[in-house]
């Protein structure tokens, strides 16, 4: 049945997709960035729709508020005179679009033939879990933010057991490939403190590097 959620999804998804296409097509770089903004905002909406509030908010804050500003800065600082031709030739367009469509085809084909998702009984179970999850995604009770925070801060999240790696796909009675979910095991909580720290340090390095790169003033065409 077609419900509001579905409607919202299709609405946002189509808008996002259109904006993405517009981003590609637009020749003016600022407009392109504007369309990108809409794409990003749409993505963020998709996240909200999926119940991932925190990721959505982060997407907004960092991409829309940060990355986009940087993009626009770049646009401003490197703005071209009106006579500079940076148009792409038709042939390039054709080649790129053909290659892109091929890529899209391959990706979609890969998605439809995606074997590693639950099927049969497992699919039903996954759907149940999904439904539960959607209910749990009630913004008032959703604990995603704190879970993510725990995961990133080294406290660990989830029940105190570790999931086994998923079993290798096996064939059921009908001959379909089935992947059974991992079997819960004991021991510690999972956390991502180390990647978090690595990313932090990485960001710091990037910050310094970017500052260094940007402040270096070289003479144009002069002797290096």
């Amino acid at each position, binding site marked *: *049945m077609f*419900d*509001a*959620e579905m409607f*919202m999804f299709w609405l946002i998804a189509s808008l996002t997709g259109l904006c993405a296409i517009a981003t590609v097509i637009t020749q*003016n770089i*600022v*407009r392109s960035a*504007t369309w990108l*903004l809409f794409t990003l*905002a749409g993505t963020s909406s998709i996240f909200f729709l999926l119940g991932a*509030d*925190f990721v959505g*908010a*982060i997407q*907004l*804050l960092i991409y*829309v*508020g*940060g990355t*986009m*500003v940087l993009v*626009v*800065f770049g*646009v*401003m600082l490197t703005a071209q005179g009106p006579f500079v031709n940076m148009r792409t030739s038709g042939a390039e367009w054709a080649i790129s679009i053909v290659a892109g469509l091929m890529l899209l085809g391959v990706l979609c084909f890969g998605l439809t033939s995606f074997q590693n998702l639950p099927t049969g009984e497992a699919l039903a179970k996954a759907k149940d879990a999904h439904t539960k999850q959607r209910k749990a995604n009630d*913004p*008032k009770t*959703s*604990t*995603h*933010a*704190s879970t993510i925070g725990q995961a990133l801060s080294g406290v660990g999240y989830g029940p105190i057991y570790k999931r086994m790696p998923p079993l290798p796909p096996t064939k059921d009675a009908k001959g379909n490939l089935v992947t059974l979910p991992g079997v819960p095991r004991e021991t510690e909580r999972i956390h991502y403190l180390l990647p978090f720290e690595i990313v932090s340090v990485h960001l710091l390095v990037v910050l310094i590097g970017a500052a260094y790169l940007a402040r270096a003033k070289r003479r144009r065409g002069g002797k290096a």
Partner: protein
Amino acid sequence: MLERLSDFWSLNATYVLAIIAANLLIGFMLVHAIFSVWLERKVAGRIQDRLGPTRVGGKFGWLQTLADGMKLLVKEDSIPASADQFLFRLGPYIVLLGSFLAFIALPFGDGVIARDMNIGLFFMLAIMSSEVFGIILIGYGSGSKWSLFGGMREAAQMISYEIPMALCVLVPVVVAGSMNLSEVAKSQSGIWNWYIFHDPFTFCAFWTYFTCAMASCKRAPFDLAEAESELVAGFHTEYSGFRWLVIFMAEYGSMFAVSGIAVIMFLGGWSLGLPFELTDFFGTTLGLGFFGVVVGNVINVTVFIVKGWFLVFVMMWVRWTLPRLRIDQVMMMCLKYLIPIGCVLLAGVSVWVLFVPIILQQIVGWLLFILSLAGLGYMGFQLRTWVSAPPGAGMPGMWRMEGLPGYQGATKSV
């Protein structure tokens, strides 16, 4: 038919309610904008020792804004030839959107909220930060150098002030242990429990936050983006009519939004200052049920809006009191002072909450509360003295005129 309807309801209640809430919020924003513009003019007039609007709408000229709005709606909507038409048209809506969407997560009362989000505070900050993009588009799309300069200034300023603002807001978050605005508000029942009085760090954080908030709303003395002495009118130089109206609606909207955040995070939210929740009091304690909840919430919403407007009033007060800074001073203040202060406050409050004994925390909290009350009382006393003083006498704290060259004496100026 009924089945289908209930089915539909059970499936889509959230969305239906959301639409209703959105309409209410739009309405509030309009009303707020109209009231704020009027208030601004009146405050400006009073501070500049004049009356402000007086004629339209009977007393106090309270319909003046509405009339102005009507005028703006019918004005010719001109677009410069060199402008990027698409972006020129798009910009104001993005600004308005950024301002409006922030209200989604802002609780006006106990449960009076469009979408009670777990990360409401974070969401608001994120949404408001997207406002700047609209301003950039406005500045760029106008095809005018004044606009471009204004837009760029605004972008730099807002992006920079995001950081100390978020840092300061995180201070009460650390105390409350939640980013859900409703929860934060509810955890401050009783005026002595307001987070502004919780500890020295939250106390400082409030003032810092408020400074940053003013800057991020490009209010004076940080209104470099529209500094008329330098940039004509900044980023919205080329705008007129309805689009100009939209820009201003957004500005006043975000003023209320940041004030609302301040109220919720520091000033007890919708609480009247009583140590119990009014909805509970009316609904459960007095046994009035749903009606009691509605009654309580009406009081709550009123209190909240009044508190918000008071902060908006303070912003205006500051605007008409202090001179404008230079852009480099603005940036320096943010990057050199406010960000370090914010970091210190955040670290300090963490240490305070974790390591300082509870009893000491409470003693300090009470001390802060009492001292603040005493300060307010002193100010009230001074005001009363001023009110009863002969006309022309200086306000408390104002520059003394005596002894200055050319000073003729107070009585002469009457």
